[in-house]
């Protein structure tokens, strides 16, 4: 640092000098040391015989000592005052620290309270999370079930609308019912009936399907609920160019049917020359559709 820079730095530092000089207490205290140093330095130099004699004779030595004493006394007095101020300030600081400590303890208690509250809240949140997860799971299941049921209903509507539109007219009455119910069994309707949900809805939908099948059979057979037709009427395939192909396809489709367990399906698809024993010779549309449903959907039809 150059001399010029040093001087500027000194001046900048000295801007606060004058307020310090205005404090008489500080000046007397600090400057007293400066003055006393001067007296002590001279006193040390005047230890020779002649100097002591001269100082003793003129009284300069005593005057100097008096001045030193006065400065020391003033210094001690100033020290006492400063010590008092420092002690007071320290006491104030200590009280402030106590206050801070007390406030810190209070704050710690408050923080503990907040921490406990936070922990409790977390527990509640965990419980809520479990509940919400469960509920969401249930809702998801419900949504899935509703979706399945919706699809099943659509599936049922599509199948029965096809039937009603005459798409199955080249089949026998029993096979119309069989094909419709088989399409439901392998479609969304069947998925819904096989889903792991409560059986009430399946039973409800199967009931609807049963009613729709009865209604459509009655319509196709031009009968009513009280009328019964012979098995021959139910099983007769209308003549058409594709009748043989359809019979063969239905025979393939229903080849797993058993004449004992599924006599209606067996009779409809396999067209045996001799009807199974358990195949009624006279039956209503309701009997036909109930039997077909039972044979295709099994226990689900009874749920």
């Amino acid at each position, binding site marked *: 640092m150059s001399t010029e820079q040093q001087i500027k730095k000194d001046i900048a530092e000295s801007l606060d000098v004058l307020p310090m*000089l*205005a404090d008489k207490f500080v000046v007397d205290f600090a400057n007293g040391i400066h*003055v006393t140093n001067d007296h002590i330095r001279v006193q040390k130099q005047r230890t020779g015989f002649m100097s002591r004699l001269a100082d003793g004779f003129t009284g300069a030595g005593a005057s*100097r000592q008096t001045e030193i004493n006065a400065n020391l006394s003033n210094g001690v007095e100033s020290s006492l005052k400063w010590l008092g101020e420092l002690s007071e300030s320290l006491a104030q600081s200590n009280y402030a620290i106590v206050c801070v400590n007390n406030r810190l303890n209070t704050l710690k208690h408050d923080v503990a309270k907040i921490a406990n509250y936070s922990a409790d809240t977390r527990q509640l949140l965990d419980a809520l999370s479990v509940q919400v997860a469960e509920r969401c799971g249930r809702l998801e299941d419900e949504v899935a079930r509703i979706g399945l049921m919706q699809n099943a209903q659509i599936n049922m509507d599509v199948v029965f609308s096809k039937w009603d539109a005459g798409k199955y007219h080249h089949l026998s009455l029993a096979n119309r019912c069989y094909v419709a119910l088989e399409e439901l069994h392998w479609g969304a309707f069947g998925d819904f009936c096989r889903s792991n949900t409560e059986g009430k809805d399946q039973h409800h939908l199967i009931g609807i399907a049963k009613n729709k099948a009865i209604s459509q059979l009655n319509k196709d057979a031009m009968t009513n609920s009280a009328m019964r037709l012979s098995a021959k009427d139910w099983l007769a395939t209308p003549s058409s160019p594709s009748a043989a192909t359809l019979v063969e396809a239905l025979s393939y489709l229903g080849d797993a049917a058993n004449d004992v367990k599924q006599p209606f399906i067996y009779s409809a698809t396999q067209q045996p020359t001799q009807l199974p024993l358990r195949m009624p010779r006279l039956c209503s549309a309701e009997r036909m559709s109930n039997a077909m449903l039972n044979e295709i959907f099994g226990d689900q039809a009874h749920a």
Partner: protein
Amino acid sequence: MPEYGKVGLVLSGGGAKGAYQVGVLNALVELNIPVHIISGASIGALNGAVLASAPNLTEGTSRLKEIWHELANDSPLKHQAPSYLKLLSAAGLRESPLIAVAQSVVSVAQHYGLPVPEKLHQAMHSGVMDDGPLKALLDKYIDHKALSDGIPFYVSVFRSAGGLLDIAIVLAAELRLLESRDSEFIHIQAKSVQERKELLLASAAIPVVFAPRQVNGTIYSDGGQGGWTKAQGNTPISPLVDAGCDIVIVTHLSDGSLWSRHDFPDTTIVEIRPQSSIARGDGVLGGVKDLLGFDESKITSWIEQGYQDTKHCIGQILQAGTARKHLKESEQALVGSEKGNAHADEALNDALSRLS
């Protein structure tokens, strides 16, 4: 009134050691400490006159540096007598009682109307050195018009009873046999230009060395002689205290000056004292050599010493003051900080009350 009160500067006497005051002033300028009123005795009066006639302290200090370097090359003390007589007279100033005794004899003789040899009588009222160069120096460096407009300035002068008698009184005061009468402090701007010149020369008129000066019929000599035991005249603080100075900076030009700050308990006094010996000469006549020692090496060393001592002195005050200031500020900061506690507590309590 300045923000921190009126600052006075006392420039005490001490012959060539007045160079020390240049160093003091240099430090004061650096420390940005203003001076609103000045008093001076002897060489301090001459230094003070230059300062008071300068437009500001910085310029005044600069001029003083220039003057003192000129003094180092060309002493204002032009010998009027052979060297041995100069030394003899000078020895009588502080060390030898012979001339004082002779002066006392003359004084007693005059008191009782006894005849006194003319040469001895002349010796009482003249100096061994010519003050012509000193007058020329004052004329060159002191602009009296600027001095009239300058900051208030007081000089210390001693009502002379005659050079040798003055010496005798001082010697007696030194031995605590009696006290010399107090010096008079004269507001220099209240005087005419001619009176100012005479008073300034009178204030610097070291008895025997320079002739005393007559102002309005009164003979004045070196103001440093008054109130000898307490350096009342050599340390003219009284006019500054009377003028209402709050802070007075006192410069001393002797080792262990017995001037006491305790005589002015109501004034804040900053004494700048030598922290190592200000004496440069040794032997019996060492003090006299210093008093009249206008040579370059001494002047340079005194200027440097004054600068360092002032820095040291103000530094001590600054150190203590800064510590005290920080203590007070920290206390105030603490009080200020605590004011926010209630608000913080209230905010926290409000927040916590929402939890319950």
